[in-house]
């Protein structure tokens, strides 16, 4: 990224920082103070339960902050992070990366261009397999609801944020799912939303789909049209292969240019905002509201009742 130097890493587990440094370059710092002294912008990629202490420390050091989603595991923590950064005057960017995925950006652009009229029915899905400890995507905290908030807080915050971007504020949410079903290594939820605009919405998130595929989908119908995208659609690159050992295999991929890659685009945008070249397309308040709606969805699943956002304080 032009004008950006990857200075280094700090991690409570020094070996994790070492691994990153070997892979991507940069130094390993032994203390947060040394780390903050050496950088302008920090990217916090800890589990959600550790976001607050790190964000507050970075804010005290007056560093611009990118914080992984969900902004925090609990609402009071997220609120304290946002208010502290606002008070101190440091930017806090929630890494709601879906806003930077090119197909989702195009959906949003199509809505903004008036192609579908006023959004009325929103649908999206984000379905993968359970992040089991010890497997390839294996940080153990995902499997612990108390740390991760399960599939709703870890995954649905993406779709909640995107839905808000397209349809505005959420009025209420009703959820059914597996989070409290007592089924080991299963988590899944179906969220039903009402927006303050009157639009309605549906979000499916899953950690119960078969391993080996990650399926995402989005559709917004308005009073003048419809926009939709589905990862099951045929990709631009599809390889069909056969060998005696594995039999037939189909490998699809949808490559982008390096700068359209969503994580790159997200970081480049935050750099542009810090340098005064752009206004943020996603704010800390957006990250906070995604967490608030996510926690309300969990509360609905727990109680079997719809949750009205106006009254919900975590």
């Amino acid at each position: 990224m032009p004008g950006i130097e990857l200075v280094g890493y700090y991690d409570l587990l020094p070996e994790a920082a070492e691994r990153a440094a070997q892979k991507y370059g940069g130094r390993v710092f032994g203390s947060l103070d040394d780390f903050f002294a050496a950088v302008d912008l920090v990217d916090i990629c800890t589990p959600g339960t550790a976001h607050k202490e790190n964000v507050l420390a970075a804010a005290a050091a007056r560093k611009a902050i990118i914080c992984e989603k969900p902004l925090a595991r609990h609402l009071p923590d997220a609120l304290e992070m946002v208010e502290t950064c606002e008070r101190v005057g440091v930017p806090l960017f929630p890494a709601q990366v879906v806003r930077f995925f090119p197909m989702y950006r195009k959906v949003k652009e199509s809505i903004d261009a008036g192609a579908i009229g006023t959004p009325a029915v929103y649908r999206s899905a984000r379905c993968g397999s359970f992040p089991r400890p010890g497997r390839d995507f294996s940080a153990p905290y995902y499997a612990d609801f108390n740390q991760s908030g399960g599939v709703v807080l870890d995954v649905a915050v993406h779709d909640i944020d995107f839905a808000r971007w397209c349809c505005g504020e959420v009025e209420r949410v009703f959820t059914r799912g597996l989070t409290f079903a007592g089924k080991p290594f299963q988590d899944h939820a179906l969220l039903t939303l009402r927006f303050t605009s009157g639009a309605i919405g549906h979000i499916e998130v899953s950690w119960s789909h078969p391993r080996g595929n990650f399926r995402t989908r989005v559709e917004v119908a308005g009073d003048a049209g419809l926009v939709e995208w589905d990862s099951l659609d045929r990709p631009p690159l599809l390889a069909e292969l056969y060998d005696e050992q594995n039999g037939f295999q189909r490998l699809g991929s949808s490559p982008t240019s390096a700068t359209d890659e969503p994580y790159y685009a997200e970081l480049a945008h935050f750099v542009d905002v810090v340098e005064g070249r752009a206004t943020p397309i996603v704010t800390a308040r957006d990250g906070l509201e995604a967490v608030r709606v996510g926690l309300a969805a969990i509360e609905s699943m727990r109680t079997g009742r719809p949750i009205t956002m106006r009254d919900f304080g975590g």
Partner: protein
Amino acid sequence: MAEHNIRIGFLGIAHLHSVSYAGNLLAMPGVEVVGMYEANEQLATEWAGRFDVQRLASAEELLAAGLDGVVICSENALHRPYVERAAGRVKAILCEKPIATTVADAQVMIDACRTADTRLQIAFPVRFAPSVVELKRQLDAGLLGEILTVNCTNHGSMPGGWFVNPDLAGGGAVLDHTVHVIDVLRWFWGAEVTEVYAEIGESLLHPGLGIDDAGLLSFTLSNGVYGTLDTSWSRPPSYTIWGDVKLEILGTHGVVYADTLQQYVTVASNAAGKTRWASYGSDMDGGLMADFVKMIRMRGEPSITGEDGLRAMAVALAAYESAKTGQPVKLSNL
């Protein structure tokens, strides 16, 4: 000795499906479409001309024509009076979905047919879609392991006409599009919907429409499965196809994506001004008609009963109740 022809009449043809049903019956050996009655003058003229089927001046004249069965494709609110008239006059009635617009009407229809020894079948053609038949076979074979959840859509285009008249239709998108999917889920598992929560939009996709045109139902079934169903008329006229019937079923062994209309060729036509998906899938209405005729011929029982129609309709009515109260509605005390 040759079997006598099965004699069928159409009592009300305001529902578009009557066109497909008639086309299938006329093509079926051993079946005679004897006549039709429709109160709406313009509809009746068009329809009778299209099929060269005799148009009768009253429901009474049609029922006096010595019919084995009648197909009722009237406006929803007229299902009850037509079924009451036909009960006892024919061996069997095929009634378009939803069975009625109230539980009380549906119950009267079921009771009238039972008392008169007339078979009452409800038209749920999705049960005859080959992909749905195969899906049921896969589920029965345990392909997915323990079933966890379903995510369903029955999207459509806004149909207009009497479909958006609350007095004749009894409800909009939610009543129109809840019953097909709920019926197949009940059929898959022999389970009943026990609770439903709904977000419903009136005139949301079609400003000024005056009836619900968007709906999301969140429900639980008596076998422990939970799910959602989108009933919205959210396919604009510019879309590639009128709508969809999709079922995504997730179990402990995997997921099935069923899209009953997925068999299509893509047709780009300058005359149409857009690209369309033209179906080459097997006609599910043909399966429904063959099943109805076979029941009459074999003197059997309907594969889809009035009770099935009532149960599916009750879920839609509970969805309206939920939207009104803002709370989940239990269906246990039906």
